[in-house]
C-alpha cells in the first residue's frame, strides 16, 4: 500500500533545518509521499535511513528507461490502481513496428512517418516514442542490417526476435543505445538474459496467457541478475481480449496491492497482433487495433507495439494517453485574466470564455487562425468547460461582472458589448443584469467565431 507521510517522517532527521526548501521535516515528508519532492534534497539524510527511505519510496512498478539521449523514454513508475488516488506516471510508450524485410525506401519512409507523426492538443505536442524492429525475415544478417539503419535514427528501439543469435547480432550493432530486448521466452531465457546483462539493456519477458509460468520465469530472470524487466503476458484479440485484460489487471494488482516482486514491472501490449488475421477492409483492422490499444492503455499497458501509422488511428490513442496521464490533483486550466489577440484598440470586440485548458487553447487557436483582433476574457470556472460550468454554476453573472471589473475592460474599449459562448446562452440575462453590459450570444463552436464577427462587428 501507499507509504504515508508519517512513515517517512519517522526516518527523516526531524531537525526542521529547512534546507530541503520546506518549512519542516513533516512538510517534506508530505511532499515525498506525494512524489512532489526528491529524497536527495535533504542534506542530512545518509546511510541506513537513506537506504530504507529509498526502498520505501520505490514505486510499486519499477521505472525502466529505453533508449538514450533526448528521445529516451521511461516507462513504469506507477503506485496506484486508480488514477484518482494519485496519478499515473510515465505515459504509455507507443512504438510502431518496422520489419527487417522491407526494402530501403519503404523502411526509410515508414521510419520517418513514425518519427514525424505528431498532433497538437491543449498546447502539447503528442508524438510516438519508439520503433519496434521485427525480425520478420528470420534472417540474422537482415536483422543486423536493419538494426544498423536504426543506430543513429535518434529514436528508442525495441528489438523483436525470439532467436538469441539474431538478437546478439543486432545488439552488437546497437546495444549501446539501450534498446529493449524482445523477448525472453521459456525456450531462450538463458541466452537472452545473458545478452541483457552483457549489453546492460532492459528485456521483455513474453509468456502468453500463463501468469503462473510468467512468475517462475520472472523469478529466474531476477535471480540471474537482470533488473530491468518488461512483462508481456500476450495480447489476444477477439473473444480472448477479456483474458488479456484480466492478465494485465492481475499483474498490476499483484504489483501494487500484493507487492509481489516478480510482477513489479511495466507491462507491454502488442495491439499489432490485429494484423495477423486482418479484416477484409483495412480500415476495420486499423479501428480494431486502435480499440485494442485504447482498452489496454486503460488497463495498465506501459508500452505498446502498433503497426498502423495513420493519423486518424493514432489520434484517439494519443488523446486517451494525454487524458489518462494528467495529474488529477491539478485542474487542467489556464490563468483567468484578459488576453489580447491580434492588434487591439478601443473598438475591438470583447469575448468571454472559461479557463478550462482545452477550451482556452481551442478558442485561442481559432482566434489566431481566423486572424481575429479582440480581447478575450477568461473566466475562472475551476477548469471546467463552458457547458459544465454553466450547469455547475461557475459561469454566472456575478463571476462575469467581477472579472470584467478586475480586468478594467471598461477602460480599454469604448463600447459595452460582451460576446459569450453559444453554450452559455442561458446565463446571458444574468450577466446583463450584473454587469450592465449588452450581452451578445455567440456561436456554439469557436471555429465559427471569425465568420460570426465578420457578420456582426
Amino acid at each position, binding site marked *: 500500500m501507499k507509504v504515508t507521510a508519517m512513515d517517512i517522517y519517522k526516518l527523516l532527521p526531524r531537525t526542521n533545518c529547512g534546507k530541503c526548501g520546506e518549512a519542516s521535516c513533516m512538510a517534506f515528508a508530505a511532499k515525498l509521499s506525494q512524489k512532489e519532492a526528491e529524497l536527495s534534497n535533504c542534506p542530512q539524510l545518509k546511510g541506513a535511513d537513506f537506504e530504507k527511505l529509498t526502498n520505501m519510496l520505490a514505486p510499486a512498478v519499477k521505472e525502466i528507461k529505453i533508449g538514450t539521449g533526448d528521445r529516451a523514454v521511461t516507462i513504469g513508475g506507477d503506485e496506484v490502481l*486508480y*488514477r*484518482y488516488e494519485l496519478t499515473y506516471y510515465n505515459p504509455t510508450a507507443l512504438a510502431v513496428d518496422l520489419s527487417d524485410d522491407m526494402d530501403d525506401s519503404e523502411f526509410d519512409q515508414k521510419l520517418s512517418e513514425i518519427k514525424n507523426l505528431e498532433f497538437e492538443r491543449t498546447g502539447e505536442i503528442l508524438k510516438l516514442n519508439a520503433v519496434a524492429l521485427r*525480425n*520478420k525475415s*528470420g534472417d540474422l544478417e537482415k536483422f543486423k542490417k536493419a538494426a544498423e539503419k536504426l543506430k543513429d535514427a535518434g529514436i528508442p528501439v525495441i528489438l523483436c*526476435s*525470439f532467436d538469441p543469435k539474431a538478437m546478439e547480432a543486432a545488439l552488437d550493432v546497437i546495444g549501446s543505445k539501450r534498446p529493449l530486448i524482445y523477448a525472453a*521466452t521459456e525456450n531462450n531465457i538463458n541466452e537472452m538474459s545473458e545478452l541483457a546483462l552483457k549489453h546492460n539493456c532492459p528485456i521483455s519477458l513474453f509468456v*502468453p*496467457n500463463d501468469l503462473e509460468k510468467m512468475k*517462475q520465469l520472472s*523469478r529466474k530472470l531476477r535471480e540471474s541478475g537482470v533488473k530491468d524487466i518488461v512483462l508481456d503476458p*500476450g495480447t*489476444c484479440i*477477439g*473473444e*480472448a*481480449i*477479456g*483474458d488479456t*485484460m*484480466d492478465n494485465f*489487471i*492481475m499483474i498490476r*494488482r*499483484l504489483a501494487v*496491492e*500484493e507487492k*509481489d516482486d*516478480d510482477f513489479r514491472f511495466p507491462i507491454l501490449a502488442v495491439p499489432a*497482433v490485429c494484423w*495477423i*488475421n486482418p479484416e477484409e477492409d483495412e480500415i476495420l483492422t*486499423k*479501428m480494431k487495433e*486502435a*480499440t485494442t490499444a*485504447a*482498452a489496454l492503455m*486503460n488497463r495498465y499497458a506501459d508500452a505498446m507495439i502498433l503497426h498502423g501509422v495513420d*493519423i*486518424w488511428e493514432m*489520434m*484517439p*490513442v494519443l*488523446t*486517451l494517453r*494525454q487524458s*489518462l496521464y*494528467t495529474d*488529477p490533483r491539478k485542474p487542467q486550466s489556464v490563468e483567468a485574466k484578459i488576453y489580447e489577440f491580434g492588434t487591439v484598440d478601443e473598438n475591438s470586440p470583447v469575448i468571454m470564455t472559461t479557463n*478550462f485548458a*482545452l477550451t482556452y487553447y*481551442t478558442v485561442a487557436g481559432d482566434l489566431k487562425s481566423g486572424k481575429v483582433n479582440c480581447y478575450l476574457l477568461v473566466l475562472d470556472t475551476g477548469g471546467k*468547460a463552458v457547458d*459544465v460550468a454553466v450547469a*455547475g454554476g461557475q459561469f454566472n453573472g456575478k463571476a462575469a461582472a467581477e472579472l470584467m471589473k478586475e480586468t478594467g475592460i471598461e477602460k480599454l474599449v469604448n463600447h459595452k458589448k460582451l460576446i459569450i459562448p453559444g453554450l452559455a446562452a442561458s446565463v446571458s440575462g444574468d450577466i446583463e443584469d450584473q454587469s450592465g453590459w449588452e450581452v451578445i450570444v455567440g456561436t456554439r*463552436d469557436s*471555429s465559427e467565431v471569425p465568420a460570426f464577427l465578420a457578420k456582426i462587428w
Partner: protein
Amino acid sequence: MDTMSQILKLLEKTDSIEINEFRMDVDELELTIMPTLQNFVQKVVEKQVEAKKEFESQIEFKYPVKDYAGKVNEVKLGGKNRKTVKLGGQTSLYRFEEPQPNAPTVTFDVFDIPMNGLPRPIKENFEDVMHSPGEWAEKAVKEFGADMITLHLIGTDPKVKDKSLKDAAKDLEEVLQAVKVPLVIGGSGNPKKDPLVLEMAAEVADGERCLLASANLDLDYQKIAQAAVKHDHAVLSWAISDVNMQKVLNKALMKEGLTANDIVMDPTTCALGYGIEFSIDVMTRTRLSALKGEEILQMPMSSGTTNAWGSREAWMKKDEWGPTKYRGPIWEVVTGITMMLCGVDIFMMLHPLSVKTLKEIGTTLTYEYKSKESQDISDWINKF
C-alpha cells in the same frame, strides 16, 4: 585459532549448511564451546526453514481475487409487450473474480425530428428513415442489432419546435409500435418542459418499464419519479461528475417511492479528450463504493457515449487529421470502451460500427477467465 573456532568462523559466513550431513563428535568438543555451537546450529536451521517458507510462498501463484461487501443492483427494463433487458447485477470488480451476469447494453439514439445537423457518418446510415422516429428505431434494431432504443423528444423544446404533449405522445406511440425492445425516453433538456413530457410519456407507455431520462436536481424530478412509480418505469438519475450530488439525487428519488431497482445513474460522460479523465475518476469511484457496500451508489451506470460526437476531432473537416468518416466512429468507440472499463452498464450511442465493436468486447465480460479459445500468438513477430 583452535579447530572449533575456525569452524565457527567459517559457519558465520554461510547461511546454508546441510544439517543432515553435519556430523560432530561431542566427545571431541570442549564443553565451553558447546553452547555457542548449539546456538549457532539452531540459528542456521531456523534461517533455512524461513528461507524455504519464503521461497515457497513467493513462487506459488495465487490469483489476486477479492471479496466484496456490496453488489450492483439489477434493474430490469421492458416486459409487458416487449423483450426484457437486465442491467447491472455485478458482485465483483473484474471478470476473473466473477463474470458479469449481464453484458453491457447498447441503446441507439433516435430523434423525433429529422436532425439534419447530425454528423455525416451517422446520417449516411439513417438518412432514409430520419423523417420517422418509428422507422428510424426499426432500422436500428433490425439492421444494426440495437438492444434498446432511446427516443429523444427533442422537438418538444420551446426553442426547437415546441411540439405539444399530444404530438410527442404520437411520436412515442409510433416507436412503441415499431419495435419490441425496451425504450429509454428522453426529453429535450428543457427543465420546465421535461417533467411534463416525461410524465406524459410514462402514462403513454404504461407498464412497459421504460427508462425515463432524466431526473436531475435542476428540474421537478418529483413529478418524473412519481409518474415512474405510478406507471412502472425506471428513472435515469443524472448528476454532473459529482459523487455527492449523485447520492443526494438518488436519495431524493427514493423518497418519492422509487426503489433501488428502479434507478440507473448517469454520472455524465465527458468525451475522449474533453474531460474523459473526470468521468473515469467519478465512474470508478462510484463503482468501487458500490462494491464496498455503499447502498446509495449501487445502481447500474449509464453513459451518454454520443457526447463523443461533440469533439472536434470526431467531426471537424481537417485534411491533416484524415477522413471524418473514420474519426467519428473511432472517437465514439474509444469513449465507450473507456467508460465500459470503469463499470458502465448501458451506453447511448449513434454509429453502427461503434455499437458493434463495443458489444463484442462487452460480451467478453460475461465469460469466465480462459473459457475461450485464443489465437496462437507465440510467433507473432513473423506473422504479418
